[in-house]
């Protein structure tokens, strides 16, 4: 399996704080790689650094063999990277339709793709002409993910999509992400919900204090309760 994304010795400073302290990771093509860790471990910073929203102070980031660590965010996005931030960041003054029109960078909205998205997120069809600011938290998350998949992307960076959502919406999101995975997408997914992580992940990376402290297969971690407790301070049973 070829690696689509590779980070080698990546450091990121934010002001005086040294957040990422030498990250080495790979994201294989066509797989879902989970990025887990306690709050403040550096997961969001890792995604933002890959996206160019924070500049890596040291190290190399390669996407499909091309160095991207010094590229500007729009150029990284144009290489085929879709980003779903933790805050969702939908444009609340714009309608659902307008949010998706902006996300469809390469042309008009594709009807087939829209129908596929509406299959998972019917609320988006229902609120098509409503301001995104008037949507509920779950609907905003659906819109944020829809925006990232409205056109084919090489790599999706998704930051805690299930955070704060009702269980029914979490299940719908998991089904959607599974379908995206079946279509062959490559995803680096930050998640605190271990149940979602187990359902979706092929591989897992665990972060602590700005470094990767564990890497392996998701199924192995899901089956090893003592390891979960040691790495994450929790066990899968607690989430079931």
């Amino acid at each position, binding site marked *: 399996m070829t690696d689509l994304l590779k980070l080698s010795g990546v450091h990121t400073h934010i002001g005086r704080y040294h957040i990422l302290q030498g990250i080495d990771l790979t994201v294989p093509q066509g797989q879902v790689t989970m990025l887990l860790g306690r709050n403040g471990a550096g997961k969001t910073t890792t995604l933002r650094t890959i996206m160019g929203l924070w500049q890596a102070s040291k190290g190399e980031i390669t996407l499909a063999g091309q160095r991207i660590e010094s590229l500007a965010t729009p150029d990284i996005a144009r290489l085929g990277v879709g980003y779903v*931030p933790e805050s969702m960041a939908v444009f609340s003054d714009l309608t659902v339709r307008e949010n998706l029109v*902006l996300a469809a*960078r390469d042309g008009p909205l594709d009807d087939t793709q829209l129908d596929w998205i509406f299959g998972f997120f019917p609320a988006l069809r229902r609120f098509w002409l409503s301001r995104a600011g*008037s949507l509920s938290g779950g609907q905003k998350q659906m819109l944020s993910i829809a925006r990232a998949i409205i056109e084919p992307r090489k790599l999706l960076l998704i930051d805690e999509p299930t955070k704060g959502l009702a269980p029914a919406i979490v299940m719908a999101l998991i089904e959607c992400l599974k379908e995206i995975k079946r279509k062959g997408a490559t995803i680096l997914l930050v998640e605190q919900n271990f149940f979602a992580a187990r359902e979706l992940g092929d591989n897992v990376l665990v972060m602590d204090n700005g470094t990767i402290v564990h890497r392996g297969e998701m199924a192995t971690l899901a089956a090893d309760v003592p390891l979960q407790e040691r790495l994450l301070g929790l066990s899968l049973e607690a989430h079931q």
Partner: protein
Amino acid sequence: MTDLAATDPLPKPKRDLAPILLPIALALLMIPLIGSPSTWLTLTAASLAMGMMIFIMASGLTLVFGLMDVLNFGHGAFIAVGAYVATLVLAPFAASIQADSLWTNLAVLAPAALLSMAVSGALGLVVERVLILPVYGQHLKQILMTTGGLIVAEQTLYALWGPQIIPMPLPASLRGSFILGDVAIAKYRVLAMLIGLAVFIAIQLVLNRTKLGLLIRAGVENREMVEALGYRIRRLFLGVFMTGSALAGLGGVMWALYREQVHASMSDDLTVLIFIVVIIGGLGSIGGCFIGAILVAMVANYGGFLVPKLALVSNILLMVAILMWRPRGLYAVTSR
């Protein structure tokens, strides 16, 4: 296109009408206080004309504020430069300006306004690249750089044109008033209202009906996410900055014709009004800017007529009142 009809009715978007009703309520409230309907109508027309001119000058600044969080204290330079550049066209064609034919007047006025917009827009390009680009995200330095730029621009105008006030008489066909019964409404004020409305409608069409407009509205709200979608917002910002500068130049020509004079520090008082308009309208909101400009002009005109001693502080009081009601302005677009 996919059939997007929903089985359930779409929720109607809530329209926030309170800010729109505010100037209407204020105008109606003034009728008994002013007493004479003809005086009220004259003052209202003056307010609308003045408001439209302030809106034209402030519209670019509010987008720049909202889009890139840039405090441009040098915006007034574009106003003054626009007015001075117009004199380059109007002075040699003074005879055409004083001709009785409206079309002859407009044949000189229109190129003068277009040249002013072009020069102010080009100056905007230089200011953004030279003064603002190095200080993105640093408010204090932005204030220092743009205030310094304003001083340099004013002194350059003094050096080129001299310290004297340059007269800029109204074209012959725009002098005088339309008389409706015992109400007189100056012809130039009507023209100013029409141009202001046209600019407002044009901006609204661009913002609401084009992808470029969507990008600007989205960028005002969350520029980082616009970049993460693959759009180079710096280029977008440069375009908005140049357009805003060009509109300030147009506003400068209109204001100079309104006052019938040009001088290098003509924008000093206007800059205060423009900043008040941008703040009370809500940073980045064109609708808020439009209503804010009319409110500021109404307070200046009605207040100046009813309580002249309050004229100096009336707009500050207006800003305090609006911000106590809505701390992020009439229409809050950004979270700043």
